[in-house]
């Protein structure tokens, strides 16, 4: 016989949720509030300094450069990931179902290899003197490119690698969304006189808009918080011109030993992402309600 408390359904439900609450508390709430707390301490973590760390950051040009770089990086990378993912998803969707699995599997490879590892491969490809890319370019009589030591090319390289790693995620989300559109809608559109582009703009896009929004939001969050690609390829150089929030926070917090300042850097992302998430999810909910 169960004790009386466990015979009540709500009590059992709450009990069963406890492990989840525990995980959220331990892995999300605690680190977040601890970071908030850290960001209000002085460098030695001995005194409360309020918002001094933030005002210090706001006065530094390097910090604003990191903000600009992070936004540029996230914007360009997410746009390309979305476009490439959509094009690839469309291409795979047109292959007969039998052959699709093979292509889907191959396209997912960049996404499933741990990025730190695959980025090492890219780093090797970008190596200025001995790498395959520059060797190939010089064979074609094109001057070698300083992939990681010139500001423009270094930014280009980290965006390229991020797109390479992240596009398959968009591909798989879009492919699932495309498959959920009833074929009859396209047939009806065909009878209505729609060509391929009109079907895409009037049927496909509106039907997968929610998936696009959610995937984009998710991707913006992980792209803005990217760490491993920059860390392996450029360590933020040359001259801090490829630092993102996470790598810069690591630089000032861990490598320069100012953990409160590093916490302040990483917290700066939070309100931006929160507002973005709120706007996107609100639109998604509205659209979902109108389509259901």
């Amino acid at each position, binding site marked *: 016989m169960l004790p009386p408390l466990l015979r009540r359904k709500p009590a059992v439900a709450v009990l069963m949720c406890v492990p989840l609450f525990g995980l959220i508390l331990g892995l999300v709430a605690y680190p977040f509030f601890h970071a908030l707390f850290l960001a209000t301490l002085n460098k030695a973590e001995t005194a409360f300094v309020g918002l001094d760390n933030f005002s210090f950051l706001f006065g530094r040009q390097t910090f604003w450069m990191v903000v600009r770089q992070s936004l540029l990086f996230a914007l360009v990378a997410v746009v390309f990931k979305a476009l490439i993912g959509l094009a690839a998803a469309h291409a795979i969707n047109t292959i007969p179902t039998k052959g699709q699995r093979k292509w889907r599997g191959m396209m997912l490879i960049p996404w499933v290899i741990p990025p730190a590892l695959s980025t090492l491969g890219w780093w090797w490809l970008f190596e200025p003197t001995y790498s395959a890319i520059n060797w190939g370019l010089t064979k074609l009589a094109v001057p070698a490119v300083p992939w990681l030591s010139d500001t423009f090319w270094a930014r280009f390289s980290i965006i390229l690698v991020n797109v390479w790693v992240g596009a398959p995620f968009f591909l798989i989300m879009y492919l699932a969304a495309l498959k959920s559109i*009833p074929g*009859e*809608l396209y*047939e*009806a*559109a*065909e*009878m*209505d*006189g*729609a060509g391929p582009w*009109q079907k895409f703009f*009037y*049927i496909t896009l*509106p*039907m997968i808009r929610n998936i696009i929004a959610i995937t984009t939001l998710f991707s913006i969050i992980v792209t803005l918080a990217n760490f491993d690609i920059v860390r392996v390829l450029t360590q933020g150089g040359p001259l801090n011109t490829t630092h993102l929030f996470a790598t810069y926070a690591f630089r000032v917090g861990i490598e320069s030993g100012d953990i409160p300042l590093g916490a302040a850097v990483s917290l700066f992302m939070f309100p931006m992402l929160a507002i973005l998430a709120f706007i996107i999810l609100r639109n998604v909910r509205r659209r979902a309600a*109108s*389509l*259901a």
Partner: protein
Amino acid sequence: MADVTLQNLVKTFDTVEAVRGIDLRIPNNEFVVLVGPSGCGKSTVLRMIAGLEDITSGDIRIGDLRVNDVPPKDRNIAMVFQNYALYPHMTVEQNMSFGLRLRKVAKSEIRGKVQRAADILGIAELLGRRPRELSGGQRQRVAMGRAIVRDPQVFLFDEPLSNLDAKLRGQMRIEIQRLHQQLRTTTIYVTHDQVEAMTLADRVVVMNAGRIEQAGTPDEVYHQPRTRFVAGFMGSPAMNFLNCQVTEENGHTVARLADGPALPLPAEQAARVRSYAGRTLVAGLRPENIREAASHDGGNSGGVPHDISIDIVEPLGRETIVYFRLGDSTLCARVGTEVHPRAGERTSLVFHPDRLHLIDPETDLVL
């Protein structure tokens, strides 16, 4: 408005031959219903006419134009799909006007056409709503509205009522009929429901296994079926089939039903089947041609009474369906409500031979 002509139309999917040589001419203004069981190829034929399915061989003509290689949008046809296929992100008005907008029709003209179609279908007050805010019947009307506004040469309907409940299906059937009377557009309608086929069609085309079994008026396919399949498919409850032998008895040609009565054949039919004397044939008799003794419609005139034992009784209100056994076969009879048969009871039923169909079991053709 236009004729539609199908010539030796064939469709093969990989190794399966779904449509095996269809020849059919649908004159202008006609309402033709393709009816048949699932997988008989009727929807494939419709989709080939629509241009949504390639043609393996044969020709389709709409008017004078051979349309085999003409894309759907240039065939000037409109189709109503089984699941309506309304665009969920567009309002009713946008759904209906989509085709016209793509064709760059002037806005004022679009508005007029949509309003007219909405008035015809009684959905004028729904124009601002989205499909999810509509009931099944309303969605069906919008789907028809989308077809009407295009003012096409041919309407194609692909089992449009199969997702509706029985009552609504009855109402929509009447509306489709009314619509056709009003617009007189050539219509090709696919269904597996023989009631829809009988009630809507100017001409019913019964299909089976990729072929046309028979094409004719509803009356013809019901009363003069050409094959055993048509005889069995049209009508509910279905026609009774049982073995019989044609013999001469007392100077009359009769069909002696296995373990049942001997039914004298009308002179014309007797002449047709005399050469089959002595062979086992299949007799087809509709439930309404087996009645209770002394029924109200003319007593037992011409009928042959026979004692049977009642198996199952299905009272339907305006009539009662009685199942009984005759030898190895279970047969079905329609009796009036004035008699109250009970399962297990023995009673006398009257077999009316005037509508007896005799079928050659080797060819399955009605003789």
